[in-house]
């Protein structure tokens, strides 16, 4: 096949990307600079007012910072829980592999709304956790687990754990087992083999897992909306409020764009800091 004909094979994917990815992005970008309208999505002309409103008000910036903190803490929590799980799942001698894969993937098999309501049953003031602890006499009043940042982080950690585990597992499975044997023959004990050899070699998977979870947590809507309620709002929740409740499309677009820029910058800095020279 000639060069030109092979290019034709890219056409379906190209069209798909332009229609469903490029056009919406450009449209959000343009909307952010539009003037809000009365009874219509946009008024006439373009403005920077949407951004001056966001940057001039600590309410929105603080909310964006809090959203990124939720993303960062969720990433850290999934990493701490997921790393040992991923290492175990990557063992070539693992039995019942299919069952364990199923368990790891299970948070994704339940609908997002049902899963979030499930967490309200567990975390609420009269939820399973608080009632049990009170029943045992360990606490007097209910622990604040719902309608706060902690609750959101707990629920997000649960959903996004597979996105941390799977890339790390793939990276660990890709490590040549004789590399660990070589380290042992050179005198390294198991903890040293993990610290000096296996963890660094799992870094590509750790890096992609962290970026995936952070980006997903940053942009998640349903879980923060249901668990955070009216008290804790993430930027994504405020964007939807602006779009649907108050019908300020340009302001919502500007807010979404601001979060994208902050999140994108964080990802770039993270990728830069964790760059692997040997790759």
């Amino acid at each position: 096949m000639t060069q030109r004909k092979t290019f034709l094979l890219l056409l379906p994917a190209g069209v798909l990307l332009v229609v469903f990815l490029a056009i919406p992005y450009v449209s959000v970008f343009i909307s952010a600079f539009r003037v809000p309208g009365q009874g219509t999505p946009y008024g006439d002309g373009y403005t920077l007012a949407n951004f001056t409103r966001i940057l001039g008000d600590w309410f929105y910036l603080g909310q964006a910072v809090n959203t990124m903190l939720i993303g960062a803490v969720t990433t850290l929590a999934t990493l701490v829980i997921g790393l040992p799980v991923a290492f175990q799942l990557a063992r070539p001698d693992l039995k019942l592999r299919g069952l364990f894969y199923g368990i790891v993937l299970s948070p994704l098999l339940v609908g997002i709304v049902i899963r979030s309501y499930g967490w309200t049953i567990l975390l609420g003031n009269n939820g399973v956790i608080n009632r049990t602890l009170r029943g045992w006499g360990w606490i007097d009043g209910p622990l604040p687990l719902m309608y706060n940042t902690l609750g959101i982080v707990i629920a997000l950690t649960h959903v996004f754990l597979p996105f941390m585990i799977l890339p790390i597992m793939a990276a660990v499975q890709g490590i040549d087992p004789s590399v660990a044997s070589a380290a042992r023959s050179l005198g390294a004990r198991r903890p040293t083999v993990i610290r000096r050899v296996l963890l660094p070699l799992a870094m590509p998977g750790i890096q992609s897992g962290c970026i995936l979870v952070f980006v997903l947590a940053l942009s998640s809507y349903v879980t923060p909306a249901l668990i955070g309620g009216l008290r804790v709002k993430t930027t994504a929740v405020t964007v939807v409020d602006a779009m649907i409740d108050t019908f300020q499309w340009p302001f919502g677009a500007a807010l979404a764009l601001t979060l994208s820029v902050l999140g994108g910058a964080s990802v770039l800095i993270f990728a830069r800091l964790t760059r692997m020279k040997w790759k």
Partner: protein
Amino acid sequence: MTEVRLNRLTKIYAGGKPAVDAISLDIPTGQFVSLLGPSGCGKTTTLKMLAGFEDVTSGDITFDGQDVVRVPAEDRDIGMVFQNYALFPHMTVHQNLAFGLEMRKIARPEIQRRVQATLEMVQLDHLADRYPAQLSGGQQQRVAIGRALTIEPRILLLDEPLANLDAKLREEMRVFIRDLQKRVGITTIYVTHDQAEAMTMSDIVVVMFDGHIAQAGAPRDIYETPKTAKVAGFVGQVNLIEAHVDPDHPGHAATPFGPVPVTAPGVGETVTLALRPEAIDIAPAGAPGTPATIERVQYSGAIVDYTLRFADGTAMEVKTIPRHPFAIGDAVSLSVDLARFRQLEREY
């Protein structure tokens, strides 16, 4: 320097027949020993037990009389070179070489000195800051050997280290490894399925089949006086001749070349004789010898291989320098020094 001794060493994997079946072997200090055999013969399993990566089912391994079977791999003080090199991809050449010394809590300046010495020894000092992915196969191989040697181990184990290199580089590395081993004087055990590697590099070749040692000895002994047809065939081309004991010459077997002295069997019984293809002289028809016809000619420059057939239908391989331009169908005359025949042990 370390003397290695295997005593009835056995490995049985769950529910299988023994992968290594009660092998015993003494390896004197400083010797280069090859474990040679087809895949599945137990040579790699033996090496893994020596390294401590594989549990021993029964039997002993001793280094200088000290039992090491229960010593974990990280305490055995062994230099190991893996088939795929197993370099640390995230470390530079220098860091790869320093790793084993860091594990031994050696002081920084001393590590520097020894890594530098090793870099020079394996001729890689100009590549110290490269990562393994930036090196060629042969360079990676030299890093692997250097990394195994920096720790000044008691013994050096190599698991098919040349299998992934191209033919030319493989020959260079054979010489390199052998020279290095002689210079360092370290007891070395080398696993390979390539008879040319085993023969050219080793002091002792240990031929293994089915978890057993079929024969161990100097390369020349293995080649010239193989005990069995399997050993004879594994270390080189061989003509196997099933011969009856000659009723006219007691104690001799009848061959197309005449009666060959053999031991033991009585008249009418058969013996198996081995004759290397290069032991046979080939001359134009009419010369003294046994007449035969050329069936196939494989000319490869320095040598030529003939397949011939005697009048009685017996086929024979002959390897010689290309002296005469014989062609297929030519009648020729074959002769051999009868002392070149080897009587083989029966295999049951």
